[in-house]
């Protein structure tokens, strides 16, 4: 058997003897990285950096909105902030972070030695650096960053300065990177599972990523098409979206949201996967309804292709169109509900303990479900006429993207970081991070529901004074939330990366199941070089 299973486990500093073509050192280790663990780490660090940049933009927005009147920025710069906050968080933070989790965990969870295409893996990471530089650097171009909203609606994009082209190019590159990453993930999952790891025995994180990767391949080219048409409209005399020459600006919205809605699920399905790993582990009980979880995830993915125009109720669709998209959207609540019920049934009559990963997972279920309900309310076209393009929508998608995706990633970090670094994080600090994040999140975003109901439009640099108090409250909450994340990095992540903390056992969580817990902590540079023999459930290595 390979040294991976060496019961003496050598720790991070010394995995010498099985590294005959072992870990390179210095900058070459990262620039030439082909190891899935190193690339996973790169992705996660990159995503966190972008999360901080996007977060600073969010706090600038909140600072301006603290009081009525323009105190800090002019409306043009404000629009640049909202646009870039959205683009950076979606394409720079959430998506790459999940790819980082996929790189680290998928090979470990299916018993593969590495990702299928190791060099393409390197390429898809390093492509993101110039794209991110170009995107963030657009602030320094003539006329500033794009200011047309992250949705980049035509024909406003046709009025933007040269930074619009930089952003389009950056999105093209990020899209190419995503597609390569997805191909890699699909091929790895379909071809490199250890013998005995059948599809219906795969951990749910692997399942959700398999489905997500297909979604990505299906819709990233659609986004590329939409922004390429914008680009040719801007420079090469085409008139896809330019009404002055017979183009149709609403067609842009249809194409964009055909990408945009599946994109929403791209950002949440891996989160479902992470939570589905953590809830059973800390309930010390098997996941309830494994098969129905897989089917529910697939149904959500399929439905995501036929609901896009619920983002466009106010564009003026025919009545049949509105009804179709309303019904289809409401249907999505059913498989999503099934997932929530399954998680709670998993917890039911378990033997639960509440370490930080479980806290974030339960926090996810609770707060994400609130976002789910506001989504159901927004799906009703008549109510949406009141709320579309207002703060209720802002509240809704932050409940599902921050309390959803981000909370799940925090849960995943606390759950798997002992495996990554070989040391336990500080549990007290983890709990402080959780409660601080949960409370400040709700202080920031809950008042936005009221603002939206009262009619405050989104992307406004200044607002009627009746909205002042809730805006002030949201700004205070926003800054508290931001500080919590700096605390997380400085006092929780950094110490574990430096190897400070209790040494992590191979299986730090009593109820955790899966192949990642069959290798030592920290996971050696190379794992599963020869395919492991698995037990009947494919959760343990035998022999």
């Amino acid at each position, binding site marked *: 058997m390979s040294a991976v299973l060496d019961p003496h486990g050598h720790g991070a500093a010394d995995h010498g003897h099985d590294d005959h073509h072992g870990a390179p050192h210095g900058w070459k280790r990262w620039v030439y990285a082909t190891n899935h663990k190193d690339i996973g780490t790169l992705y996660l660090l990159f995503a966190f950096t972008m999360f901080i940049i996007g977060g600073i933009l969010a706090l600038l927005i909140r600072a301006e909105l603290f009081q009525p*009147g323009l105190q800090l920025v002019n409306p043009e710069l404000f629009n640049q902030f909202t646009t870039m906050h959205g683009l950076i968080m979606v394409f720079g933070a959430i998506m790459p972070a999940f790819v980082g989790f996929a790189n680290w965990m998928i090979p470990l969870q299916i018993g593969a030695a590495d990702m299928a295409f190791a060099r393409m893996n390197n390429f898809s990471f390093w492509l993101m650096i110039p794209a991110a530089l170009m995107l963030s650097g657009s602030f320094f171009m003539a006329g500033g960053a794009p200011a047309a909203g992250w949705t980049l609606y035509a024909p*406003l994009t046709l009025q933007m300065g040269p930074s619009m082209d930089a952003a389009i190019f950056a999105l093209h590159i990020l899209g190419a990177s995503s597609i390569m990453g997805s191909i890699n993930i699909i091929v790895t999952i379909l071809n490199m599972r250890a013998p005995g790891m059948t599809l219906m025995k795969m951990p749910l994180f692997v399942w959700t990523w398999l489905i997500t990767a297909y979604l990505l391949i299906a819709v990233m080219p659609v986004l590329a098409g939409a922004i390429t048409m914008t680009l040719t409209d801007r420079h090469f005399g085409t008139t896809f979206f330019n009404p002055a020459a017979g183009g149709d600006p609403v067609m842009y919205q249809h194409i964009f949201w055909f990408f945009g809605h599946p994109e929403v699920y791209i950002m949440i399905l891996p989160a479902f996967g992470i939570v589905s790993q953590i809830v059973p582990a800390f309930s010390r009980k098997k996941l309830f309804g494994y098969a129905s979880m897989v089917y529910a995830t697939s149904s959500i993915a399929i439905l995501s292709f036929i609901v896009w125009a619920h983002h466009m109720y106010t564009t003026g669709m025919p009545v049949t169109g509105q009804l179709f998209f309303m019904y289809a959207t409401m249907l999505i609540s059913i498989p999503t509900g099934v997932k929530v019920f399954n998680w709670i049934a998993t917890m039911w009559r378990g033997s639960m303990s509440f370490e930080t990963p479980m806290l974030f997972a339960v926090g996810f279920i609770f707060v994400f479900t609130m976002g789910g309900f506001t989504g159901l309310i927004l799906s009703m076209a008549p109510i949406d006429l009141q709320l579309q393009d207002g703060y209720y929508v802002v509240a809704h998608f932050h409940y599902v993207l921050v309390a959803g995706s981000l909370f799940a990633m925090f849960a995943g970090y606390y759950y798997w970081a002992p495996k990554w670094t070989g040391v336990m994080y500080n549990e007290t600090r983890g709990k402080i991070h959780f409660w601080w994040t949960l409370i400040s999140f709700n202080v920031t975003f809950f008042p936005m529901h009221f603002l939206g109901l009262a009619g405050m439009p989104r992307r406004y640099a200044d607002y009627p004074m*009746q909205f002042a108090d809730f805006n002030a409250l949201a700004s205070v909450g926003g800054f508290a939330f931001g500080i919590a994340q700096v605390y997380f990095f400085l006092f929780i992540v950094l110490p574990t990366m430096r190897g400070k903390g209790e040494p992590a056992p191979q299986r730090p969580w009593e109820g955790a199941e899966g192949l990642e817990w069959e290798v030592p902590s920290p996971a050696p540079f190379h794992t599963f070089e020869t395919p492991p023999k698995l037990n009947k459930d494919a959760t343990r290595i035998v022999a």
Partner: protein
Amino acid sequence: MMNHLLKKLDTALLAIAAYGATAAWAVNDLPGGPAVRQLNLHPPVTKIAEEQVWLHWFMMIICTVIFVAVFGVMFYSIWKHRKSVGHKAANFHESVKVEIAWTVIPFVIVILMALPATKAVVASKDTSNADLTIKATGYQWKWGYDYINGEGEGIGFVSTLDNAQREMSNSGKPEPTDDYLLKVDNPLVVPVGKKIRIITTSNDVIHSFAVNSFGIKQDAIPGFVRDTWFRAEKTGDFHGQCQELCGKEHAYMPIHVKVVTAEEYTAWVAVENKKLAAKQDDPTKVWTLAELTQKGEKIYTANCQVCHQVSGKGAGPIKPLDGAAVVLDADFTKVIKVLLNGQNNAMPAWKQLSDSEIAAVISFTKNNWSNKTGQMVQPADVHAAR
């Protein structure tokens, strides 16, 4: 110790209450617009809005019941089924019956939700048999209203945010104002109890025409015409704001609808028609320079100042007019063209202004600040260039 803490908490609560009270004292609820710390939708003024408020309550109640039930179970489980209280894990992990139940029951609930929503969608889409049809055109950044059909046909005007409020916003310290960013020069006037069809379109980018109290929101899309309708059941002033990101002044193009009685509306139409007749340009009239610059200054303040500034120096990407070659040029055909057609995507087209208005504003810029050319442009020149 406990006492001390309680005392501190008391003072803190008092301070918060005092802050809340002063805020409430400074700004009041705006009838037909937002209320201070408003928690729910606007009080409805149309049947459609009433339906929306009802639907929202209906959804809120169903969602809250489900939420409490589901998370009641979860928190009960969290309380009882903990390792720390010695609970041993059960072994079940599958039940097809349960899965079917919690797929079918939500499906039935969703259908129950969809039924009343369908009714409301169909009603809100029926724009037929309108008593009055008004076209609302979005401009960067103001609304143009044209009465197309019905009583008042032919009336048309532009509605812009009060310039003093725009400047208050820039100052960073706006005075407490109840209708802050909601006050316009010319509100849209409509009669009560009549079916009003609003046709939306746009001159540049996508805007959105919305009035919360009426429960309407309709994007105004360049090159396309869309419609919506309302029948206000109460007189009064009702406010909305542009709802689709339309560039830098997005937050500064409010909508103000004044709902009046049938008699008041007829009187208003008569006054507007008189104004319209007076405004009619006599193409043969030759204006004096003083007349032109006087009128031009008003046009400049209402339309140009937002970007080009009071100083005429522009700001950032906005070009200055003070000392600009194209303004000083004795050949005015170029500058007329810029005003009629816009320039470089940055300067919008102003062809909606009348010949005399364009002539006046050009004459004003040619003779203001350091521009002392003495040149003028006559409405006839603009007419010729159209």
